[in-house]
């Protein structure tokens, strides 16, 4: 059972505290959904976890091994993969070369194509020419080929058509069902809660709710209150 455990994490940007004492966990086979209004600190939390920005304090552990002081590459090789928001494909490389960049020695490209068959037809196309949905599929598939223990995905639905978002959500659920631990930051709360197991709601850099997705799904008023406070 792979797992991510985060305890009392604090992250600052430019000396300004953004995340304060955040604690969460993600277990193998589960999707942990992180929700919150714009500016709540969701993206900063993921960036702190993956090492894009250094953490001020707290602990991050993958399968019991602490990684909070390691560089992003070390964290990735330890099994913590971060799919950034904004569909960060390597635009000049072909779709297949994008997939090869993160390819683990024991992994095969077929794993990516099995998850997203749409990419097979586009494997020779430069990634910069793919549609937004295809680019999002590509960055998720690319991270998957790195053999992650925990996959963190930031705002994968941003700017995409609802039908594509549904397709991506289904694929992410499938990954979790195969044993992957997924941390999903998402603006579309209803969709995320529909596929998630555990929910965290953030407000002003703090985790203000930690519970089951099903509980929040049944109580939209509570979710609204958690977003806005009061």
């Amino acid at each position: 059972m792979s797992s991510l455990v985060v305890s009392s994490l604090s992250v600052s940007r430019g000396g300004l505290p953004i995340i304060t004492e955040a604690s969460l966990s993600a277990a193998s086979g589960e999707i942990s959904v992180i929700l919150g209004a714009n500016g709540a600190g969701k993206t900063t939390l993921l960036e702190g976890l993956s090492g894009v920005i250094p953490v001020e304090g707290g602990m991050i552990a993958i399968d019991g091994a602490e990684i909070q002081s390691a560089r992003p590459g070390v964290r990735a090789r330890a099994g913590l993969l971060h799919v950034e928001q904004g569909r960060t494909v390597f635009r000049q490389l072909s779709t297949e070369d994008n997939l090869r960049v993160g390819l683990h020695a024991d992994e095969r490209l077929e794993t990516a194509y099995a998850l997203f068959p749409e990419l097979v037809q586009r494997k020779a196309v430069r990634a910069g020419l793919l549609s937004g949905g295809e680019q999002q599929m590509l960055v998720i598939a690319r991270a998957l080929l790195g053999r992650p223990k925990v996959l963190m995905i930031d705002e994968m639905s941003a700017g995409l058509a609802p039908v594509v978002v549904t397709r991506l959500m289904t694929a992410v659920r499938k990954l979790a069902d195969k044993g992957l631990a997924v941390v999903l930051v998402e603006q579309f709360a209803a969709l995320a809660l529909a596929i998630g197991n555990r929910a965290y709601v953030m407000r002003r850099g703090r985790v203000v709710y930690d519970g089951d997705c099903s509980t929040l799904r049944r109580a939209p008023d509570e979710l609204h209150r958690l977003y806005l406070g009061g």
Partner: protein
Amino acid sequence: MNELLTSAVAGLTAGGTYALLGVCAVFTYRLVAVVNFTGAAIGTAGTFVLIALYEAGFPLWPSVLAGVVAGTIVGVLVGLVMTTWFSEANASTKAAVTVALLVGMIAIGLRLTGGQHPHVMPDLFPGSAFRLAGVEVTIASALTIGLAVLFTVLADRFLNATRTGLHLRALSERPMAAELLGVRVQLLSVLVWAVTGTFTTFALMIIAPQRSPNFMTLSLLVVPALAAALVGLFRSFWITLAGGIMLGVVEGLASSFDGVSQYRGAIPFVVVVAVLLWSQREARWDDAR
């Protein structure tokens, strides 16, 4: 006519060096997104290690090896500065940092090597390689051009046919995205600096006997090198290679004309301005409309 040909062929040695330094500049720019003003200074540092050892009586080829190793180490040190503190800075900031490093390296280099004090620079490859239309082509000329072609071919093959090359291409586009996939970004970046340090040092050792071997003069060979890189628009290795050789040939030809000869050092600046104006022509046309 023969005099012109002689001058053009004489420019080949410089052209080969400009080409190699230019291709190294493109290599550094494409892979670690740095317009590197320290390229020639890194090679100059290694060259002066060779000169110091040679003047102290050490045998030639072990001194060459020590010089190349020293140039590689200086390249790695500059690379560590750039990757440790400026990896996420924009291209302008990185270029400005390398200009600052160049100034610092020249100041330290002049201090350590006695400024304009004349030095004995051994000719590594004396003699003639072959005759071209009745004009002797020196071994140094053939070697610098050969080295530039070799580096271009190797760089092209390495980037397009190896896994490390693929990682470098990814790193050049999005360093953080590459690192988040587990690519060893800092190690690869430093490797780029080490390789360019090795090649530029060896190239400068070949050309140094034909130049005034002082730290400033050799370090400022970065100007024609960047002019060559600009001809290739900092993307094409082969156009940069051709641009560097042409620059050397034009400089050589210019030395045949009395009225122009004294200004031939300005030719790289003319090329820089011409390429910049040409590359901006569409923007100017749009503005005019």
